[in-house]
């Protein structure tokens, strides 16, 4: 099956995202936020799923989001358009699930041996720690970056959902993290 | 105790990968250690030990130990164990179970095994919650405490598993905690030594669910809770009612001599065979 056909086959604007890293990095939540923003505010169709069971306990944790303007038939990812990897292990595990033309975004400190030359690297965790004060918001930083880089979700939607979902008292930090994500992506695009 | 501290490792299954599946700090690992030390101290051959369990975090224990192990269905371990024991009475049969496994779905088998006074030892890891399925309240969750299915606080009243066991007919009933390991070792050893149905209720920390949902956070906090609220039975009997409030009694609560089921059956068979021969 050549790639052109494949693209066509799965629906013209189907877009498959995987956020991956290790447990505790908040990637499931990030996936839910992303899906919620795209689905309930941007108004596209969306399916979010995650590894459940043994896999979820292994080294690599992941959240998948499939986006489409049309009906989404198969709910799980088939070939990723976008992979976010916050650890080397996740990157190694999931890179093979990507399309050739897919976008790879990694934490540049954690993924020291990227499997390809074409990727975007940002030190999400370090930045989160240094600029926001807690490493835990690295997930939100990366969401901002994804938004800015791919446009798969609107800023407005993302801001709204992050606000809504942020635990009380952390709204500000999370908004700052999001902005940070936008910023570094914008800079990278330049 | 004269035990070498690493004797435990001789009883872990070589083929089964360690570390175990339990959460960091989960009391179940402490119970695992205590059970092994107790068996070891009694010099029971590994081949003669059968450890049965149902389903739950606690019921995951047998898979780690190098005995005959039977990981059965939720709540039914005691009934399976009964079959094992009666079919081959020389085996030392131990059931490791949780508050959900033993007292929710498995309550009936529990009380009937007590009644029969069959020579099985039950180690009941009571963490006041269903750990494995993610923190639903259990028959031992105290009233007003939270669980994922008690989002507004538990409106039910908990069992006292030891009282239940005693009234149902068990011959040896004890309680301890994962903080009080010396006592725990003694209680389990005593239970294994008892001819008859023996129950050791072990209060164990599930900080991951019970702790988190009830703001008693980490293992250390929960162990401290056990430390502070346990009152050994010797002391319990002496302190006035009001001093007992909020505390729970530990130690050997009940120890009586009664006919054991397998013995009774053996006697019956002997009687019948003598009768047949005399004919």
């Amino acid at each position, binding site marked *: 099956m050549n790639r052109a056909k494949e693209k066509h086959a799965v629906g013209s604007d189907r877009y498959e995202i995987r956020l991956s890293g*290790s*447990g*505790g*990095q*908040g*990637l*499931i*939540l990030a996936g839910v936020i992303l899906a919620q923003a795209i689905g309930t505010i941007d108004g596209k169709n969306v399916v979010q799923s995650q590894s*459940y*069971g043994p896999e*979820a*306990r*292994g*080294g690599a944790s992941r959240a998948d989001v499939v986006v489409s303007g049309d009906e989404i038939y198969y709910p799980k990812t088939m070939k990723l358009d976008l992979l976010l990897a916050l650890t080397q292990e996740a990157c190694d595990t999931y890179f093979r699930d990507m399309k050739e033309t897919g976008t790879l975004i990694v934490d540049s400190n954690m993924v020291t041996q990227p499997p390809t030359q074409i990727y975007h690297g940002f030190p999400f965790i370090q930045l989160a720690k240094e600029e926001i004060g807690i490493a*835990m918001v690295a*997930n*939100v930083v990366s969401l901002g970056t994804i938004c800015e880089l791919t446009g798969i979700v609107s800023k407005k939607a993302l801001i709204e959902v*992050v606000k809504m*979902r*942020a635990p009380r008292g*952390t709204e500000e930090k*999370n908004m700052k993290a999001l902005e940070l994500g936008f910023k570094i992506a914008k800079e990278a695009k330049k | 105790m004269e035990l*070498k*501290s*690493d004797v*435990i*490792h001789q009883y*872990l299954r070589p083929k089964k*990968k*360690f*570390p*175990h*599946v*339990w*959460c*960091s*700090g*989960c009391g*179940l*690992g*402490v119970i*695992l*250690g*205590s059970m092994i030390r107790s068996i070891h101290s009694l010099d029971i051959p590994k081949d003669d030990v059968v450890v049965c369990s149902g*389903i739950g*975090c606690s019921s995951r224990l047998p898979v780690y130990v190098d005995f005959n192990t039977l990981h059965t269905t939720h709540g039914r371990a005691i009934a399976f164990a009964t079959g094992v024991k009666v079919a081959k009475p020389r085996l030392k049969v131990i059931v490791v179970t949780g508050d959900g496994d033993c007292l929710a779905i498995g309550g009936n088998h529990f009380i009937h095994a007590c009644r029969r006074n069959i020579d099985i030892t039950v180690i009941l890891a009571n963490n006041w919650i269903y*750990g*494995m*399925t*993610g923190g639903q309240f259990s028959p031992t969750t105290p009233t007003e405490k939270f669980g994922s299915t008690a989002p507004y606080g538990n409106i039910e009243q908990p069992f006292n598993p030891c009282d239940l066991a005693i009234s149902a007919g068990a011959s040896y009933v004890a309680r301890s905690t*994962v*903080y009080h*390991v010396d006592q725990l070792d003694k209680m389990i050893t005593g239970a294994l030594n008892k001819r008859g149905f023996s129950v050791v209720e072990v209060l164990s920390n599930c900080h*991951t*669910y019970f702790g*988190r949902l009830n703001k008693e956070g*980490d*293992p*250390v906090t929960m*162990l401290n809770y056990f430390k502070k609220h346990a009152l050994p039975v010797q002391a319990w009997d002496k302190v006035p009612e009001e001093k007992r409030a909020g505390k729970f009694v530990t130690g050997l609560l009940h120890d009586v001599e009664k006919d054991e089921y397998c013995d009774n059956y053996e006697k019956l068979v002997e009687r019948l065979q003598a009768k047949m021969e005399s004919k």
Partner: protein
Amino acid sequence: MADKPKKKVEDKPPEKVENKAKAPEKEERKGSADPLKIFYHWCKACNICIAFCPQKVFEPDRDGKPIIARPYDCTQCAFCWLHCPDLAIVSNEK
């Protein structure tokens, strides 16, 4: 904003575990004079030994695992190895 504690799923470990160790390996960070052996591959950094050691023998390392910081204070009271839920501590005595 990290995940809420992960939903537990039946019959699966709720925590990330490292499955690298096959059998206890004797690892000693402090040389053979240490009163204890700690199997770091098994230790899950629960903090129990560190918090409860009556002699405050341990200090946490970067990952929260116990470093035997004050070996000579150890009285071999056994608390740590009896309470380590991961069976990751044994005594060097006897």
